[in-house]
């Protein structure tokens, strides 16, 4: 079947198997490999991206269901060579180690800050509670998101 969707601002059309998962479409067909895959049961959240402006677990969406919709992935966080404050925050506060959960965490963080620019620690913890990080024990992820909240328009470009 054929699907057409907007991915990071670009319209893409592809012929796919109806059973293809969105995460595999994004990774294997569009070669956007910042979105990861980590489990079979919608528990880990490494595959989180935005569909129609909202974070979703892309391992639990068929590519066919994204037909006509707008997708945003981690590759679209940096704009014009400037990192999103969330990206900068993860660097500043050591919010990542192996980096595998990071894109999903950042997509959720960006959405949270868009809707709640000054979230409390509790609100941040709640927002990322459907995503597992095995490395950081979450404290620095919380700090990273707080950093982004406190530096909403960072223009520092890191390395």
């Amino acid at each position, binding site marked *: 079947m054929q699907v057409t969707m907007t991915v990071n601002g670009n319209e893409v059309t592809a012929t796919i198997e109806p059973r293809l998962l969105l995460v595999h479409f994004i990774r294997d067909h569009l070669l956007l490999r910042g979105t990861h895959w980590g489990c079979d049961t919608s*528990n880990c959240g490494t595959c*989180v991206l935005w569909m129609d402006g909202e974070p979703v677990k892309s*391992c*639990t969406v068929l590519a066919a269901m994204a037909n006509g919709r707008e997708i945003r992935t981690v590759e679209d966080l940096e704009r014009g060579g400037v990192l999103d404050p969330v990206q900068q925050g993860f660097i500043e506060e050591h919010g990542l180690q192996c980096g595998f959960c990071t894109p999903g965490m950042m997509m959720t963080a960006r959405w949270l800050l868009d809707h709640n620019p000054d979230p409390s620690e509790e609100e941040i913890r709640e927002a990322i509670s*459907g995503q597992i990080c095995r490395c950081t024990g979450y404290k620095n992820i919380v700090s990273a998101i707080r950093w982004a909240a406190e530096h909403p328009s960072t223009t520092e470009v890191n390395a």
Partner: protein
Amino acid sequence: MDNALALLERHGSESRIIAGGHSLLPMMKLRLARPEVLIDINDLGDLSYVRRDGDELCLGAMARHRDLLNSHEAGTLFPILHDAERVIADPIVRNRGTVGGSICQADPSEDLSAVFAALRATAVIGSSKGTRKVAMDDFHIGPYSTAVGPAEMLLEVRIPVQHGSGSAYEKVERRAGDWAIAAAGAALRVEGGSVSYAGIGLAAVGAEHFRCARAEASLLGQRASEESFSEAARLVSESVNPVADQRGPEDYKRHLAGELTLRALRRAAARAEGQGG
């Protein structure tokens, strides 16, 4: 909508409706479910409402968990809805998962089924031939099995609004986002000091129709007191049929059903009295 119903009519039991996909897709990935045809109803924005219609609160089948959580009206009329929604899966899943999908999956541990049972909600089921209303007791006909026929789909859930009532939901899970070890919801209406309506919904403990009719009956006409609540909780413990699994042994779940019923009743009563809680 007509298109979806026509597709259902055509493909019948070979087809499955997909909404949020958080129950069906994992089963398909594990190759436990193998539908020939998937009917994607995510574009049925018409069914995503949470609104009051006269004496009822109406939840469209496509209302996402998040929609319900964001609805001030729903939370005010039925605090139990927000209590439950806050502990269903996780925020990202709640962005996709739907009210209809949850109760149609009919998992015995599903929270909204218990909530709707406590609230005596009604399901509105549609097909190309029209619509029919089914009480919650008749909606669930067994584990993973509902009254929705192969050529039908759930359209909405209607909850009767009762003035002066209070409700609450209590759930214990092994970890945030896990299914309930046990959960209990309570809805109470107290008039002239005595209970005029009692709903007790239970998830994950093998309660028939997600309810405990014995405990509900024991409360009617009684004072809303620690004593009557304890008795109701005792009856719940006695009545449920939990099954041991890795979430816990049978005795613990039985205990928990009573303990959580007691807590839910206390909070429901406090809310009914307008004391918050």
